[in-house]
């Protein structure tokens, strides 16, 4: 469903992606793990055209991702994104945030969209916050609104860019459990994360990225429990046993 073929990307002199080839099947949950600066987030940002890429090809459901082509809007309405720092619209209410895309980009009928927005807010456990403004919510609540906003687009896949990294530790669980529910419902998800427990329990597959290449990939449990490559072993040791 999402295909990357030999994708290269440089920021100035710094080549952050050195030939990434991967694909994500429909209904699959793929976690991307790796040290910071390895290019994990850049891969996600290239998939929905927030970032351009220099070489190779990315396609979503056969549609080429080209951030300068008009077709990028079609890509983005099919692939939603959840950001590390939520990026909710502070001047709109929670419900308005959720319905913004369907209403103004997809131009769906208002009553229907509002109804769906409320259902989605209930799903993420925030039905009673519909009329609040994002700055009044905790980080965990904001991220759950962001997930509802992504779902409101009725996307075929959702990209998560370190969705719990900006949260207080006690709020991480609420967000992860919403994500787990999505995965159980069959949503296609690509998740950049440092939550190894989530990756092991929820992901179908894990990609370990370091230095702009996929060092190792495989079924989540196998890769995280018995990593083969020394760099993967080293990384996991440091993440799981920091002391």
């Amino acid at each position: 469903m999402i295909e990357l073929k030999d994708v290269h990307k440089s920021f100035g002199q710094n080549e952050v992606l050195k030939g990434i080839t991967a694909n994500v099947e429909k209904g699959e949950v793929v976690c991307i793990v790796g040290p910071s600066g390895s290019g994990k987030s850049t891969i996600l940002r290239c998939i929905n055209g927030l970032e351009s890429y220099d070489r190779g090809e990315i396609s979503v459901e056969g549609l080429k991702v080209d951030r300068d082509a008009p077709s990028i809007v079609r890509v983005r309405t099919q692939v939603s994104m959840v950001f590390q720092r939520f990026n909710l619209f502070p001047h709109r209410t929670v419900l308005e945030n959720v319905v913004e895309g369907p209403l103004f980009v997809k131009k769906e009928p208002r009553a229907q969209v509002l109804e769906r927005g409320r259902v989605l807010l209930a799903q993420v456990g925030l039905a009673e916050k519909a009329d609040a403004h994002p700055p009044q919510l905790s980080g965990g609540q904001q991220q759950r609104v962001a997930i509802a906003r992504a779902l409101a687009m009725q996307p075929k896949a959702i990209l998560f860019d370190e969705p719990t990294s900006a949260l207080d530790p006690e709020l991480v669980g609420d967000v992860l459990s919403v994500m787990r529910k999505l995965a159980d419902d069959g949503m296609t998800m690509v998740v950049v994360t440092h939550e190894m427990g989530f990756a092991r329990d929820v992901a179908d597959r894990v990609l370990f990225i370091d230095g702009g290449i996929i060092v190792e990939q495989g079924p989540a449990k196998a890769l995280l429990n018995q990593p083969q490559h020394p760099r993967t072993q080293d990384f996991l040791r440091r993440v799981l046993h920091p002391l």
Partner: protein
Amino acid sequence: MKGFWHDAVEFFPILMSGVALTIIVTIGSLLLSTVLGLVWAMMRVSGIKALSMISASLINVIRGIPIIVLLFYLYFVMPDLGVTLSALQAAILGLGIAYSAYQAENFRAGIEAIDKGQIEAAQSIGMGWWLTMRRVVLPQAVRIVLPPYGNVMIMMLKDSSQASTITVAELALQGKLIASSTFKNTNVFTLVALMYLTMSIPLILLVRHFEKRAGKK
């Protein structure tokens, strides 16, 4: 200050006709400078190099010319080029153009102060450039832009007096005419100053309100 109240009562109606013109010039040029300033600012942040450069040079040219010279140019030079403007039209046009440069820089600063994450979030739900501006960036930028916008309003109110140099009979010119025919300089100009102040004070209070609101979040 002898007979101030007596003079005030006598000159008030004439000065009020000046006040009316002052208000017309101020509001007219405020509207024009706002529209032009928005256009320049949008060109600046459009991401299209040519538009951005045109806008930047235009702003610099406008900023580099004194308002009074701009007014002379519109009123005295344009007729030679076949475009005749009334004094009032030239005043509104001149002040509007002159202030559009400051408005543009103010709007641009407001737009650029919006977190990049907001723009990415808008893009990620499929919004194009214009929809992102209209639904996400501009509504948030307004809050930031309003206090300096209020200050520009005050400056424009006072600078509308420069229209007197091209014969617009606004408050300052009416005052000058009365003073030179009655020689009651002190009383007349005190009255004129008080009338400007009376118009400025509500605007000053408005700016304070904007600042409080902007500081809240």
